[in-house]
Every structure is written in C-alpha cells, then in structure tokens.
C-alpha cells in the first residue's frame, strides 16, 4: 500500500518504527494531491506552508495523537490567516484573524493541516454542487457527487488526499458524504466539540466531526477534538473520554433497534439489503436486534427545514459588506450596499434558505412555523430518549441511495429528501456515525448509520469497530 492510502494509526505505527518520516509522509500526500486533485477537486485552498510549519515541530510533538499526520479541514472552519470562504463568494477572500478551537486542538496534537476543502456554500446542500466555485467529484466515480455538504472532506479522505479530515454536520453533512465516499464519518453529541470558529449555519444543530478511513482513526480524531471550551457556551463539560478504549470487537448483549418506520420508507433496495445484511452480522456477533417504532422522519425533516433556515437567516445576516468579505461595487448608499452585496454574494440555495428562515420568524408566522418546529423537535428528542431507555443503539441507512450523479437533482425538495435518515439525529442532538457496509451493483459505497444516545459515542465506536472487522471493507480504496 502507498503511504497516502494508510490510516492515521498505520502512519503513526510506521513513524514510530522509523519506517518512514514526516517529510516522506508530507511528500506522499502532496504528490497524491498533485496526481489526483484535478480529477477529484476536493480542495479550495492548499496550505502546505502551514503543514511545513508543524512538520518542523514534529520532534517535540511526536508523542501527540496526530503528530506528522496530514489533515484536511472543511472551509467553514476558521483558520488564522488562511482563507475560510465557506465556498461562498461573499467570503471568497476572507482570512480570519483567529483559529477555531478545533484547529488549535489539531495544532496542539501535531497535525499537518494541508488544506481547506470544498463544500456546499455555507454547508447548505447535500452534494457539494452548491459550492460557489466548483464541483467536487466522487473518487469512486467521478461523474457522481461526493455528497454534502462536507463533500470535499469526504472525497479527500477517500482519494488519499489526506489521512483524515474535519467536516461539519448540521443535518447529515458529515455522515452523508462519508456514506457516498465509502469512509467513516461521526457527528458527535451536540456540545461535544467546540463550535468556536465554525462559521455558523444553524447554531443549534451544527457540530464539527471527523471523517476518517476507519473507525480507529475516528476514535483518535474524536479524542483530539472533543472537550469543553469556555469560548462556546453550548459546549459540555466533563463528557469527553479516551475513545480508543471502545476499540473492541464485542457487541454481545448490545441491544440494537431497527426503526420500522424508517425501513418502510421508499428508498433504494440495494441500500436496504446491504444495511440489513450488516445488521444480521451484528446479530450473529451477539447483538440483540429488535424492531423499534419512531416518529415519522418526515416530521423531523419538516422541523429541520424550518429551524435550520430560521437560524441561518440570522447567522448569515452579518454578510452585509460593511466589515469583511465581498462588498458590491454597485452601491451608492447603505441600503444598496447591503442589498447588492447579498444579491451578488450568495448562491441560490443560500438565498432560498434565508428567505424561508426569514419568513418562518416573521411576526404572524412565528408561532405557526418556528415555534411549532421547536415543539416537534422536543417530541423527536423525547422519542429518541424513550428508545434509548431500552436500546444501546439504533441502526438505519445513512442515505436513501448511494452517491447521486452530478447535476441530476435540480429540485431542492428532492435534494432535501436525501437527508431523511440523518436530519432527525441533529434535531435530537444525539451522536451518529456512518460506516461503509457494502457496495451497490455500480460499485458505489453504501453507508450504515449507527445512532447512539446522548454521549453514547463510545458505544457507537465499539459497534462500528466490531462491524468493520466483520465486513472487512476498510482497506478497499477508490481507484483513480
């Protein structure tokens, strides 16, 4: 295997044994990017300078979890003095004067930050086609989308353009692209990862999380990025653990719920079969599998498409051309500066959600939309809590299909539906992981979603690790 195909822990092993050096690793990934980036187009910005800076500090940091490991970062996560555009024209040349907390944590862990990845503009989308700059292509089939919104991060991991990456997940934006690209993606319990420096889309739903080649790497990355941050009032204290202790092949006695209402939805049969086959494997390994009943996911989707846009309409109001980012040339007073900057700076999907959100919060509509959605949110949360009283985990597909072909979904509502399995998790604030469970007849990866209770990341990692060993798919790589 090539260095760029290796996982974090494999690279660390080689470094520890002296079988390779940080310089070699850096070069291997730089060469890989040079070789395949034209095809995949994962990155908006490459940051080899930053990687070189940290590589130089390798000796003093070599005991750290990510010392010498090339990591890619989604472009909505602030990096000091490095463009953080959120794939939007409105922030095209914006360079933050500060690092997000996760980037500081990666830094402290010795990671080599090698680039900022493409995404749907402001993380609004499910295919990365809403990037204001270009599409990213799925490494398994370049005519397909990598998913979204963290499509660049998932594609970069799958293509060997980084060892692992950070994404952000508001309604599935880590898990769905991980599923489409055949890699592992974890959305943590809300509050586990500091949002300081994450450019807000929907503050009550957004979480940063890892996208990795295997479950062990996911545990390592989770160790690095979790923890209380006094700069984020919604971050939780005293919950982070050493997740590596859950890297055990053992699901005996674990109670896994299969939500009937989700599996009864109309979705790809190959996906359904593959997920259920994997569940069978878990059962064979000693898990107790039972059908559970859950609120119709359509309600979660409806609530999500009120709450998300409502918060977004407020979060994105600051892009007005006054302080940073784009300022329209076509302006002769404050009003036209605001108006034209926002008209020119935002893409259609972002505008659509700002309009929806503004409407939902407007006087006279607030109760019918925003307040109702919040009530639905409480019910969904209660529903998950109820199930987790009796179950350790819930299993669903990550997405209704494998990766869609680029340019085939033009109806926004149809696109929203691809989030049907992932959105309820953000609404409930619980953690969930997507791991590869098979391939469809077109050799496109299929993702299985493991959902856990609040702070149940450990259980998820343990079940995922067990399943990964059984299915033995983790060394399968896209050919480019």
């Amino acid at each position, binding site marked *: 295997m090539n260095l760029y195909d290796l996982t974090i822990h494999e690279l660390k092993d080689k470094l520890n044994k002296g079988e390779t050096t940080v310089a070699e690793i850096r070069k291997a990934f730089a060469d890989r990017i040079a070789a395949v980036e034209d095809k995949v187009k994962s990155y908006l910005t490459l940051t080899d300078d930053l990687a070189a800076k940290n590589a130089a500090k390798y000796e003093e940091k070599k005991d750290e979890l990510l010392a010498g490991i090339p990591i890619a970062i989604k472009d909505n*996560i*602030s990096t000091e003095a490095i463009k*953080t555009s*959120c794939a939007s024209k409105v*922030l095209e040349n*914006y360079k*933050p*004067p*500060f690092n*997000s907390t996760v980037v500081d944590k990666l830094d402290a862990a010795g990671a080599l930050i090698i680039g900022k990845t493409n995404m749907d503009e402001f993380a609004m989308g499910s295919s990365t086609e809403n990037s204001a700059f270009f599409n990213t292509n799925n490494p398994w089939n370049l005519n397909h989308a990598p998913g979204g919104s963290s499509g660049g991060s998932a594609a970069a991991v799958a293509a060997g353009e980084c060892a692992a990456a950070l994404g952000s997940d508001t309604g599935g934006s880590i898990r769905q692209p991980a599923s489409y690209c055949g890699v592992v993606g974890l959305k943590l319990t809300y509050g586990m990862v500091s*949002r*300081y*420096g*994450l*450019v*807000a889309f*929907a*503050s*009550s739903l957004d979480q940063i999380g890892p996208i990795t080649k295997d479950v062990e790497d996911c545990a390592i990355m989770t160790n690095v990025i979790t923890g209380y941050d*006094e*700069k*984020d*009032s*919604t971050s939780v204290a005293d919950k982070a653990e050493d997740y590596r202790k859950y890297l055990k092949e053992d699901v005996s006695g674990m109670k896994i719920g299969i939500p009937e209402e989700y599996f009864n939805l109309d979705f790809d049969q190959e996906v359904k079969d593959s997920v259920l086959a994997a569940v069978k494997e878990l059962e064979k390994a000693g898990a107790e599998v039972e059908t559970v009943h859950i609120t119709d996911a359509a309600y979660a989707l409806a609530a999500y498409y009120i709450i998300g846009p*409502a*918060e977004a*309409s*407020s979060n994105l*109001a*600051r892009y*007005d051309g*006054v*302080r*940073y980012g784009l300022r329209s040339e076509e302006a002769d007073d*404050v009003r036209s500066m*605001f108006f034209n900057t926002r008209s020119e700076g935002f893409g259609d999907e972002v505008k659509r959600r700002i309009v929806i959100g*503004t409407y939902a*919060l*407007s*006087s006279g509509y*607030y109760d019918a939309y*925003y307040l109702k959605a919040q009530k639905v949110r409480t019910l969904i949360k209660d529903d998950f809590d109820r199930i987790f009283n009796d179950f350790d985990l819930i299993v669903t597909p990550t997405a209704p299909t494998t990766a869609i072909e680029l340019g085939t979904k033009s109806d926004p509502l149809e696109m929203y539906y691809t989030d049907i399995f992932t959105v309820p998790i953000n609404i409930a604030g619980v953690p969930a992981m997507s791991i590869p469970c098979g391939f469809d007849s077109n050799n496109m990866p299929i993702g299985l979603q493991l959902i856990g209770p609040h702070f149940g990341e450990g259980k998820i990692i343990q079940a995922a690790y067990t399943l990964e060993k059984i299915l033995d798919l983790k060394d399968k790589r896209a050919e480019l």
Partner: protein
Amino acid sequence: MSTKYETVIGLEVHVQLSTKSKIFCGCSTEFGKAPNINTCPVCLGLPGSLPVLNKKVVDYAMLAGMALSCDIAEYSKFDRKNYFYPDLAKAYQISQFDLPIAENGNIEIETDNGIFNIGVTRVHLEEDAGKLVHEGSIDKSEASLVDYNRSGVPLIEIVSEPDIRTPAQAKAYLTELKLILEYLEISDCNMEEGSLRCDANVSLRPEGQKEFGTKAELKNMNSFSAVEKGLEYEVKRQQKLLDEGQVVVQETRTWDEDLNKTISMRGKEEAHDYRYFPDPDLLPLEINQSWKKEIRERLPELPREKYKRFISEFSLPAYDAGVITGNREMAEFFETVLKDYNDPKNISNWMMGEFLRLLNENNEGPYDSGVSPENLSKMLKMIDEDVISGKIAKKVFEIMYESGKDPEKIVEEEGLKQISDEDELESLVDQIIAANPDAVEDIKNGKDRAIGFLVGQIMKETRGKANPGLVNQMLRDKLMD
C-alpha cells in the same frame, strides 16, 4: 368648551452598565479610546465567533432589578433582535424578548405636587451597538465610518408603565432612577457620554377615559431638561391637534434641541419586524435562590430610604435631607463624618453651607475636594471645644478645601487658635472700653446692643480669634454689675 386631557407618559431608559469588560467578550468597556481599539472577533461579529455571558453583567442587572422592587426571574433567556444597520456587527442585537431578567417593579418619586409611585414593567439585558462616525455633518460626509468600541457594551433597558402624568414627573422619575443606579454603583449614568439614554412614549386622552390615546415615540433627548422640554412640547402639540379636531399619528419623533421642537421621523424609520427568536449560542439564564441571596446582600440602602431616615432619625429638614441623599457621595460623606461626630444637624449645616458652596463653585464632588470626612469631623469638634470660633472655622474650612490639610495643622500654621485666656484678653478689653466711651455710656444706660459693638471691635483687633462668648462675659463683668 374644550375637552380636558390627561397626559400619559411611559419611559424607556437604556443604561450602560459599568462593568470592566463587555457583555459577551473580554474587551474593555472604557470610554474614549481610539476607534475600534476595544474590539475582538466576538464584538466585531466575525464569522465563527461566539458570545459568552459575562456573569458580572447579570449581577448588575439583578441589583438594578432588586433596587427597583422587581421580581427577579428564575429562568430568563437571550433573544436575537434582527435588523440591518452598519453599526450592528452581527446584524442582530442580543437582547431579551419575552423573559426579561426582572419584571413588576416600581419607583417612588416626589414632585412639588406630591409623592407618586411609577410602575416599572421590566428590566432586560442587551448589548450595545457600535457608532457611526462622519466627517463634518452626515449630509456632507464622503463616507460613514464605524467605531465598534461600544459594540457589546452591556446595557439594561428599564421600561416604565404608562404611569407618568406630567413632564415634571418624567424628570423626577429619571432623576430618581439615575440616583438609584448611582447608589448601586452599576453605571456612570452620564447622558452626554451616552451611558444613560431615554426614549418616551407620549399620548393624551380625555380625562376620565380608560383607553390610551394614540402615542408618539420621542427620541434624541440628550439631557434631563431636554426630556422635560421635549415632553412639554409634545404634550402641547398633541393638545393642539386634538383641540382642532385632528388626530395624533402614531410615529417616532425626534427632539431637536436647537429648534426647540419635536420633528417627525416618518419615512426615515420604518416599522420593523425584528424577528426575535431565542439565541441558540447562549444557554438560558437560570438564577437560583443562593445567587439571588448573594446579590440581595449587596444591595445598599437606597436613596428614598436614606432620605426618609435622615429626616426621621436625624431630624434634618426635608430639603437638606433631599440635597444630601440626592448625591451618593454626599450621603456617604455625611455618614462617614457622623461616625466620629455625633451631631447630624451640625454636619448637615456645614455640608449644605460652606461645603456645597465650594463644591458648586469648583464643580466638584465631595471626594474631589481636599476635605476628608475625618478632617471635617475634627474641625467640628474643634468648634465645639472652643478651639476655634465658628467664624474662624469658615476660614479653616476654605484652607482645608484647597490644601487637604489637617484642620489642627491649619489652625497652628495660620495662628488661628481661639484666644480663650482671660489674662491674654484683659488689656485689650480695657483698651477697647477706653477707646469707646459712647458705647460704654450706652451700655450703662441699658442699651444691650452696644455690647455687640464692643465684642465686634475686639474680634476685629484679634482677627476673629478672641473667644466671642468669653469677651462678651468679660465686658459685662466690667461694665454692668
């Protein structure tokens, strides 16, 4: 016959809290810094920045709520008020919408027409916005500049019930509110620096009618007298409209200090839909009993209580009690002097007299002057012990005010000690008697007033140092028996 109208006024007062750092970040709140010095990613609203509540701000708001006899919320929250304006860094202001930190209070005020209780609807927390700066006037300036130093400075908004009936009451309400906040030491309450701002809602209704008339909202009143004048103008304006059978339009009007009138802002300020919703970046504010208790224990005696106590306990005239408690430092000064010197009336006389005169002349507060409470009580004791006369004391006081010196030292240095030694005065008394035969004759003829003349002569000779009582007695002994 024209209808008699009743005026209905409600005030919304914004007060900057004097915490060292801003409400949601660690930036300094210091006034007068170079533009955009006191800023960071949070108060500039940079993408990805997040607010973290400064607990001290909550303490201050609780103090205010308690001092205004409000109920303090056990569960409160922050909401976003969304609107676009260049000085608003995030294009929303973090404020409190439906669950303010304090509600249902009142303020007792006193005017020439009596004592009134004005309800306080609510006290809520919010962040201030930045400030637009223009070169020259706003119309002629090439561009607008923005200074975000003020962005994120903590504010409380205090909303009154529509209980105020006259502009004079409005002024009294503001005065009392400002005084309470000064007693709490939670705000500078400086209207010129904008740390206290007041908007008013004004309407008229026929006397006896329950429903409110149509109100106008009055802004830009930058001093207490502007509030009073603005309201007076507005009441007259509405009265005239109603008398002429016209209607009052609901609108925002701005007080123009130069033109001495209110001007409609229609068209300039459209009706806003602020789309309030709970700020997802901040946790709800839960205030438990022990926190409340801790703050309640910090609550000082408030001006009205102190005022009443000064009258009942010290028998001070209401006016004097009002003046002394009408300034937190004066009241504190008074009570510090009282610790060493137990004659409140005498202290009050001195503070109301010489002290206040000099403070007003120099436009200073008591602690800016050279007079310390310890030295004032020392000086008052010296008068009581006949070390100096009351007249000499005025001179000592003036020197003390300028120099900050100990009164004993001043008396010694200036040779102002009272002459209370009969032997020392004997020859002078004889001299004066000899030099004023007419007066002596008058005294012998029973004209008592002439003694005062002789005392005056001796005081003049001793440059006020002779003990006047003693001199008086000596003259009587010598001339009348």
